[in-house]
């Protein structure tokens, strides 16, 4: 298996399971999350939100609120400049409505006051005059020609004339002759599916503290997946230079893609600017549900043809996604991912993004892929059932592999889908007996992964320890993995390395912690930074030994003469070199910055057994196994955690989670009592099987891991439930009322 020139076959630190560096702080409550930061003289920020799904704002009278004792600032959209760039304008208008409100919970004004009680009273004194407008929250209804228009004039040039004005973009992918493919099929199944919008469900609500001084300099502390992106957005919205705004990311209590943009941060900064005081805003759970981004809701049609022996002859999907009241590009990802697990001669996906009166979509682990692959994998499973074929054998027969022209265009290099399917087939779970009334489902899943802009500094301390400064909030164990890779490359114990997350003024730009990029890209930059430091240490030693730098090599954490001709010198350890660094030229540090590529795609296969209670409609998950090509697992416990976490979030998506809107367009279940995520007592142990197919684009073979595991559960659960009740389910979530309704209709 091809690795690059820095091929590492035998690892000493990578692949081990050291204790997590943030463990003690987190279990003892010392870790500082977004809401834990305070400042002297701090004010409390609160936001007034729309009670309407769609309404024109005729006027906002803030005078009574401003006159209330203890209120220090009140702001509306008028406190932000109108942005020329449409993407920035969307961000601003999502943070604070301008002209009209576009969804229930849309922010219209904000106050900063001395106490929470005063802030709450002030919100009640703000008089907003609305003119209610017709609304639409369903994606299919929003595509009708007579649907209420959420925002006019937002369609891209790729939308054909005659489509509803709510359609903002169209995309199409695929290759081959569909008509010939379907003509060659022994059986064609064509089905329609819907999936509800679901929230990332992070436990920590959005929180921030903003402090702007009279000279225009500002500090912002917030929970985010990307402090540099927060800086860029806030600086643009506030009209600041990036250098004048320092953003520090707190510990993060879950993000899953949902903390890749801003909601309250520009508002807190604007309130701080106006009041001259630090301002802290912490969202309530109600606000998190109503006004931060859930994933897209979807409506999908899939048509697949298959021969009697299980060869797929053609596949076609039409996908309609709604990312809420603003344009969103998630449809592009879904339409590309839908058939990615298959080696197809004829495939076509056509997708549309549609505006609805819902909150603006924000990424959620592998954005767009779970919905599309759910629909495709459901139809594949139905074909297998109808043709009497083993669903794993069919997937093995049709699996994408090295050399496959993918459904979205590029030809695959080394990928691990076949190995993952074979591991599932060989696992005892696949052949374990099922009791009557139980069902087993499986699904393959796929995600692209990517690298991105990355910057790392590595400092050799004089006591022989190493400090690493990186710029990506740790949402999945990256500090441990980065320390492990540095220790591996330097040849020192893991315990000698500590990795911290920098603020935006302490290190060059880093892209957001997203796209399953951090262990891959930051790890790669760390390896390069370690090599940079090694080169400098070898040069110092060469000077000391009075030999050429090329005659010194680095092995097992020591500088050594490269051979007998280089001279006889005892090896010098990193600690020995560090101890004399002030005498040999000064501090020693390594650095690397780059735009990483070569992340390598990832595949997973999930197996699940369920039992459905026909009296209540409740589904019990009996057994669940995740198989995933993780590339080299740097810290296998974290990799397993990602696989388990993705599976659990997917189980929630499949069985219970959904945004429920009333006829009035208002969200009816904005809280964890009515929006039901799985809890430990709902679940079996999620078994994991890591496949380590090396990624050719990384010296240790590392791939992204975090997003792929949320992709297969939707179809795996749907296929299991469908087989358990003898009825194909085509709508998510498969909540007890829906299953009862389906069973009742069957009778």
């Amino acid at each position, binding site marked *: 298996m091809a690795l690059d020139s820095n091929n590492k076959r035998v690892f000493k630190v990578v692949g081990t399971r050291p204790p997590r560096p943030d463990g003690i702080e987190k279990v003892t409550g010392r870790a500082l999350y977004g809401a834990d930061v305070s400042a002297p003289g701090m004010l409390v920020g609160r936001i007034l939100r729309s009670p309407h799904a769609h309404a024109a704002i005729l006027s906002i009278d803030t005078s009574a609120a401003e006159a209330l004792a203890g209120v220090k600032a009140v702001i509306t959209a008028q406190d932000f400049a109108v942005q020329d760039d449409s993407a920035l304008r969307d961000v601003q208008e999502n943070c604070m409505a301008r002209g009209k409100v576009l969804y229930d919970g849309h922010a219209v004004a904000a106050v900063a006051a001395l106490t929470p009680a005063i802030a709450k009273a002030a919100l009640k004194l703000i008089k907003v005059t609305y003119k209610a407008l017709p609304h639409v929250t369903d994606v299919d209804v929003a595509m009708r020609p007579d649907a209420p228009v959420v925002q006019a004039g937002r369609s*891209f*040039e*790729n939308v054909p004339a005659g489509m509803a004005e709510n359609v903002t973009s*169209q*995309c*199409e*992918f*695929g*290759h081959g002759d569909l008509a010939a493919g379907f003509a060659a099929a022994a059986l064609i199944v064509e089905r329609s599916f819907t999936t509800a919008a679901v929230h*990332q469900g992070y436990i920590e609500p959005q929180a921030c503290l903003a402090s702007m001084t009279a000279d225009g300099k500002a500090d912002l502390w917030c929970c985010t997946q990307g402090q540099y992106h927060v800086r860029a957005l806030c600086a643009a919205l506030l009209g600041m230079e990036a250098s004048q705004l320092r953003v520090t990311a707190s510990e993060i209590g879950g993000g*899953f*893609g*949902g903390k*890749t943009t801003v909601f309250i941060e520009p508002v807190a900064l604007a309130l701080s600017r106006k009041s001259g005081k630090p301002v802290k805003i912490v969202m309530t759970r109600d606000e998190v549900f109503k006004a931060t981004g859930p994933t897209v809701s979807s409506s999908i049609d899939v048509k697949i043809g298959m021969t009697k022996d299980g060869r797929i002859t053609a596949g076609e999907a039409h996908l309609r996604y709604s990312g809420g009241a603003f344009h969103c*590009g*998630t449809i*592009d*990802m879904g339409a*590309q991912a839908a058939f990615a697990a298959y080696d197809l001669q004829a495939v*076509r996906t*056509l997708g549309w993004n549609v505006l609805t009166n819902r909150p603006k979509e924000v*990424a*959620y*682990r*592998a*954005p767009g892929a779970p919905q599309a692959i759910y629909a495709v994998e459901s139809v594949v499973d139905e074909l297998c059932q109808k043709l009497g074929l083993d669903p794993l054998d069919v997937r093995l027969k049709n699996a994408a592999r090295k050399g496959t022209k993918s459904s*979205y*265009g*590029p*030809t*695959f*290099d080394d990928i691990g889908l076949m190995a993952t399917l074979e591991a599932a087939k060989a696992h005892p779970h696949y052949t374990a007996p099922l009791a009557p009334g139980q069902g087993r489902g499986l699904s393959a899943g796929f*995600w*692209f*992964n*990517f*690298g*991105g*802009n990355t910057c790392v500094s590595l400092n050799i301390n004089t006591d022989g320890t190493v400090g690493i400064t990186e710029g990506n909030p740790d949402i999945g164990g990256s500090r441990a993995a980065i320390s492990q890779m540095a220790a591996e490359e330097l040849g020192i114990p893991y315990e000698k390395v500590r990795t911290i997350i920098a603020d935006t003024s302490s290190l060059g730009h880093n892209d957001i912690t*997203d*796209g*399953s*990029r951090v262990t891959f890209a930051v790890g790669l930059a760390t390896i390069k930074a370690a090599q940079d430091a090694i080169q400098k240490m070898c040069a110092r030693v060469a000077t000391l030994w009075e030999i050429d730098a090329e005659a010194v090599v680095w092995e097992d954490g020591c500088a050594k003469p490269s051979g007998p001709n280089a001279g006889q010198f005892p090896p010098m350890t990193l600690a020995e070199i560090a101890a004399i660094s002030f005498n040999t030229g000064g501090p020693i540090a390594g650095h690397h910055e780059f*735009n990483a*590529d*070569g*992340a390598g795609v990832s595949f997973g296969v999930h197996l699940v057994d369920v039992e459905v209670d026909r009296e209540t409609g409740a589904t019990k998950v009996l057994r669940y196994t995740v198989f995933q090509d993780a590339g080299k697992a740097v810290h296998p416990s974290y990799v397993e955690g990602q696989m388990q976490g993705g599976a659990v979030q997917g189980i929630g998506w499949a069985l219970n989670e959904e945004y429920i809107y009333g006829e009035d367009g208002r969200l009816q279940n904005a809280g964890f009592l009515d929006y039901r995520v799985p809890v430990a007592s709902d679940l079996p142990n999620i078994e994991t099987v890591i496949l380590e197919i090396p990624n050719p*684009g990384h010296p240790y073979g590392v791939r992204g891991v975090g*997003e792929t595991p949320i992709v297969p559960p939707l179809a795996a659960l749907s296929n299991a439930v469908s087989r358990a009740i003898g009825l194909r389910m085509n709508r998510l979530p498969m909540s007890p009322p829906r299953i009862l309704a389906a069973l009742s209709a069957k009778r």
Partner: protein
Amino acid sequence: MVAVTIWGSLRAFTDGRAQVEVEARNFKELLDVLAQTYPGLKPQITRGVSLALDGRIYREAWFTKIRSDSEVVLMPYMAGG
């Protein structure tokens, strides 16, 4: 010349062709020539695209070298969660 595969919804701006040939040595030249030759592609290129080169996906990397025999596929700008 480099053969560039265009995704379906952009073919309306390349006279219906799924693949176009351009003279380009790197990613930036390729985008510049595409936007110049097929002005209808310019809005999408401005919004952002990725480039798959022999199966490897690149974002923003202007100076990525392209060989004449490379498989080049234009893709939407990658995003993740």
